[in-house]
């Protein structure tokens, strides 16, 4: 009797629940499709973000690990530091602080030599900037790709949490993909990126190295002094 009474209620319950269950199934299917697409976009294949990230890291590694890094330091030593040693900063600064009305012939020669050395150093500084421009481009590219991948990873976690709520069994392969396929590759790339990224950062900020900073600051002062002397003699040219 009790069963008979409950039958209509059961039917009503089923009628009420079935569309909800069907909707949940449809939601789960949609989420799973989104996950499949997202995994494709995150992957290390074709145009996948992991592959693009790997490519950027490899390019940066090629430049830094296979020569450019050493090349640049030698360049700074030979073309900037060695030339700076030839500049008589004291002489230039003294001339600039009290420019005499007339220079002795030997003073003119020394001044011209100093001017030439400083000009060459500035040429080398421009070249140094050019050498570093590509490192800067690749470094910002790896940062951008790492950030994009991080966003995608978080999106994958969100979708996975949604799918786990609706269909835990369907979520299992995607959880395995994230833990077993994506994460080890991503971690390896991140470690390589961190090592090479530190070198890139140091290279890009080389002018702020404590050992070079006083030299470059003094070079700036000498350049300004030379400019003052040049303006003074142009103004007083007969």
């Amino acid at each position: 009797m009790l069963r008979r009474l409950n039958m209509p209620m059961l039917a009503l319950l089923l009628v009420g629940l079935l569309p909800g269950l069907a909707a949940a199934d449809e939601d789960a299917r949609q989420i799973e499709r989104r996950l499949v697409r997202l995994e494709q976009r995150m992957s290390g294949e074709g145009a996948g973000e992991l592959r693009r990230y790997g490519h950027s890291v490899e390019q940066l590694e090629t430049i830094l690990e296979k020569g450019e890094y050493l090349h640049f330091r030698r360049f700074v030593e030979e073309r900037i530091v060695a030339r700076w040693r030839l500049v008589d900063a004291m002489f230039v600064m003294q001339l600039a602080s009290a420019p005499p009305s007339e220079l002795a012939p030997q003073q003119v020669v020394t001044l011209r030599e100093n001017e030439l050395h400083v000009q060459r150093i500035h040429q080398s500084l421009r070249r140094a900037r050019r050498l570093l421009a590509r490192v800067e481009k690749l470094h910002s590219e790896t940062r951008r790709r790492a950030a994009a991948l991080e966003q995608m990873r978080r999106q994958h976690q969100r979708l996975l949490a949604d799918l786990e709520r609706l269909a835990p069994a369907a979520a299992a392969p995607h959880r395995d993909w994230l833990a077993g396929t994506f994460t080890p590759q991503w971690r390896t790339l991140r470690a390589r990126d961190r090592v090479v990224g530190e070198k890139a950062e140091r290279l890009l900020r080389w002018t702020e190295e404590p050992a070079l900073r006083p030299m470059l600051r003094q070079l700036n002062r000498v350049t300004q002094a030379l400019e003052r002397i040049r303006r003074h003699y142009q103004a007083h040219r007969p």
Partner: protein
Amino acid sequence: MASRSLPSPAPAGRDRVPPSIRAAGPLLAAALLAAFPAATPADWDTEALVGFSHQGYESDSTRETLLAHRVEVRVLGPAGSPLAGSLRLARRADLTLDALSAAASLDHLGSRLRLALDLRAERVEPGPLTAPLLSFDPDSLTAQEAGSAAYDQAGAGLRLDWTALLWDARLAADWSRLAYDEPSSDLSDTRELDLEAAGGVALGELTRLELDVDIRETLYDQRRASDGQELAAALRLSRPLGERWSLAVAGELSWRAVRDVDSLATYERPDGRRRRLGVEADWLGEGWRELALALDWEREEWRDYPGYFGDGASLALSLQASWPLGGGGRLEGWFEAAAFDPDTLSGDVWILRRGEERRLEGGLWWRHGEGGRWLLVLGLMAEDLSLRDVGEDRFRLLRGEVELGWRPRDALRASARLGLDSYASRYAGGGDETELGLEGSLELGWSPRPWECVLRLARERRHSFLEDVASSEDWETGLELRWHP
């Protein structure tokens, strides 16, 4: 490229594997066995990989060859148990890296609750081609090695996921430590703690609100760098629009604080904050039809520390699409346009402050015959970047690739890949640079289950034209064996 006049890195501890790393593998294995006393070997999913390759690199001034190797063992399981474990032991040595790592994880998968614990240890030594980290000697102003870059790394992570009907929450803590063999003021031991708390809640039937808070604390032992904290908070609101469309709006705020500005390394970012606002729209059609659009605005503000890292704002638009073509083919494409505008330009030739930036990037990938006997993949990628500070530097990159795959039988496959790239740049200070790269690889795979054997031949040649012509060549001949019972 210049000759490698500086001595190649020969760290004192090159052959010294610390006991902690040597013991990590067996210890982790023992811990896993103790956690699953009832599991038999058949319950575990095992995968082993051994690979040997002859690798080489040659440029105008450098030549290095190496018999590289890679060994990896992975154990997963036991199957069907609510408590799952995994162990991964790997050794990899190539031209730029020599690494030995061990990692283990334990996962408890409940119906609503997931608890995961992972432990990892790694020993990394530079490879024969790795350039040492250099700094300038204050007395002689010559470049010198800043210490051995060989290091040990260890870490542990704990993660808790809680999924309810209307909401979910995630808590994660990750601690890692990096210790160099010869710590110095340039390379010093680092400790990092990363805490993440995230949660999502359904607002009504369709709308969902998510909050993500990330705190990162970094501590250095003696390096010329300042300890610092980073805090990022993101709020994201998403809502489906009809059956196919979905829309999400996200706002993100992040702060960076340093403890001691005086000890800030020159390449480090000082105190600052970033604000980001993003809108994403997705359309998901039948088959592989998909369209995703995103618009992002970001503003960064830094303490004005010696004129670097200036403030500025960026705007980026991205479009990602995928479309099936007749005969089992599929076209994928993406396009990105981004701009960064600094508040002020550095105005100095040798200060590399971030200048004005305009970037366009796009790519198309066509795949035909996936899963069939023949596979053909054509890819094309292009980028145009302009950086303006004192003058304007311009970069253009074009990259194309073709891959042909053949699978005469299920267990046999062959593939050939050819890639060509061209890189051109024009600098404000004068001088053009062009680089051409050509790379090709052949792969032959035979997989009589449970074995898989892959023979790989790869070669890459690059020519760079900047004042002097420089060329370099990479090659690899390798064999990889995988066993997956």
